[in-house]
């Protein structure tokens, strides 16, 4: 871990011998370990990863939503979920945004209960 002067905050590489005689900038002889900053590397990574993060995750059979509304007139359907589940969950464009039509679900349960009672 790099060393940082507690007075002038100058940063010196780990194992740097120049600090043995105190901080070359201010003469202070107190240093603390700091976490390595990888600004440059991070920026490179971000640039490389940027197109990937922009890419929207596609709906899969494992997705919680049964229908995803990508935009007006553009929809993705999770047939597996539609076929297996009674209720429908709408996913919006952004990941993690959902609409659960509670009225429809409650109506379905009401209908089921009425049918069960009739039986």
């Amino acid at each position, binding site marked *: 871990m790099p060393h940082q002067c507690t007075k002038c905050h100058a940063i010196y590489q780990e194992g740097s011998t120049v600090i043995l005689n105190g901080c070359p900038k201010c003469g202070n002889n107190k240093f603390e370990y700091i976490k390595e900053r990888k600004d440059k590397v991070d920026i490179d990574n971000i640039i490389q990863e940027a197109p990937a993060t922009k890419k929207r995750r596609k709906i899969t059979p494992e997705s919680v939503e049964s229908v995803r509304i990508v935009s007006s007139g553009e*929809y993705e*359907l999770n047939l597996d979920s539609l076929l297996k589940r009674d209720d429908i969950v709408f996913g919006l464009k952004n990941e993690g945004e959902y609409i659960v039509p509670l009225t429809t679900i409650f109506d379905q349960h009401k209908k089921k209960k009425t049918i069960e009672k009739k039986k």
Partner: protein
Amino acid sequence: MVINLFSWVKRLFKKKKKAKIGIYGPPNAGKTTLANRIVRDWSGDAMGPVSHIPHETRRARRREDVIIEANGTTVMLDIIDTPGLATKIDFHGFMACGMEEEEAKRRAKEATEGVIEAVKWLEDLDGVILVMDATEDPFTQVNVTVIGNMEARNLPLVIAANKIDMQTASPARIRGAFPQHPTIPISALEGINTDQLYKEIAKRFG
């Protein structure tokens, strides 16, 4: 003699067996063309309009009491022609077919609702005719998901490998993909081999 008379009387008063059959499949596989063919062949009527633009059928249509006679069996069917099952509906596709943006978006919305309606009908069915376009690759997410779900529901299934009037059709590819289900090569448009399909319908759903 008495026994013969008894069975004759029994047959006379016996109710015809009735089965509710859904016609399912991806968009543009020829579901409505097949529904029209069946209804026309057995009741002289039509079921609904067809089009080359996908998702022409966006509401399920039902025709009751279609009587089919094949293999010496009479079967009474309620036929439900369903909207095409799809995993993605994009209005841009409709615009490419010459539609205005507003109309294309409305069609996309209705088609999405149609898929949900088609799935809801499954609860109420006794069997399914799954229509596949024999000119296309049968290993699609729609076909695999639908067949898997029908099997889980124990719903009798007949696959109609449609469009065999087209040169590039390969019903054998469909049969090879889903060998566990009867596959009947047909052309709903031209009426080719539909007799074979009626025999299978009578056998499976009768």
